[in-house]
């Protein structure tokens, strides 16, 4: 069956990125460094664009004095925000180690900053799924 002309293209290309790394390592790489799995799969431009956008979003979130949320089960929304932020591997880890993102509630950009931080994590979750999807398509 011929796909429509405007359909999203998912055609596998010749690349040995998945074969070299293996699916679990590829997923770990995708989670840790946004866009790195796409680069490993040979889609350099796509990977760099995704990584750059997500990284810029994370840095802007910190610059806007947003908050890095803790795993706080007593407040479900805070817990979910923490889960979303942890979807961004290394930058979130660096923030935890460096003590960044304490959040300044009185700053006018506080809500925007927190939204940027949460969204960057959620977007990276989509990027991880995309990397898995592409790796699976290549193995078939």
């Amino acid at each position, binding site marked *: 069956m011929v796909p429509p002309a405007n359909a999203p293209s998912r055609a596998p290309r010749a690349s040995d990125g998945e074969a070299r790394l293996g699916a679990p390592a590829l997923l770990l790489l995708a989670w840790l460094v946004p866009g790195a799995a796409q680069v490993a799969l040979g889609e350099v431009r796509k990977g760099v*664009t995704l990584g750059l*956008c997500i990284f*810029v979003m994370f840095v802007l979130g910190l610059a806007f004095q947003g908050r890095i949320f803790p795993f706080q089960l007593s407040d479900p929304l805070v817990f979910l925000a923490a889960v979303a932020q942890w979807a961004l591997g290394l930058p979130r880890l660096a923030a935890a180690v460096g003590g960044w993102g304490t959040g300044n509630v009185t700053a006018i950009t506080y809500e925007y900053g927190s939204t940027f931080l949460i969204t960057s994590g959620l977007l990276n979750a*989509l990027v991880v799924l*995309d990397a898995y999807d592409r790796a699976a398509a290549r193995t078939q």
Partner: protein
Amino acid sequence: MTTHLGVMMLFAALVSAVFATLLYDDGRQQMRMGLRLFTGLVVGAYLVGWMMFLAFR
């Protein structure tokens, strides 16, 4: 850039770029989808903002 509109447009631009890059492999299609998403997000935010203003004033 720290106006509500400026930050909202920055957010829309970054989200549009990620979605367009994920959805398409071709550069032209990515650009077209990115612009459509960006316009939709900004115009949508404006419309919802006005609707809330008129409904709750």
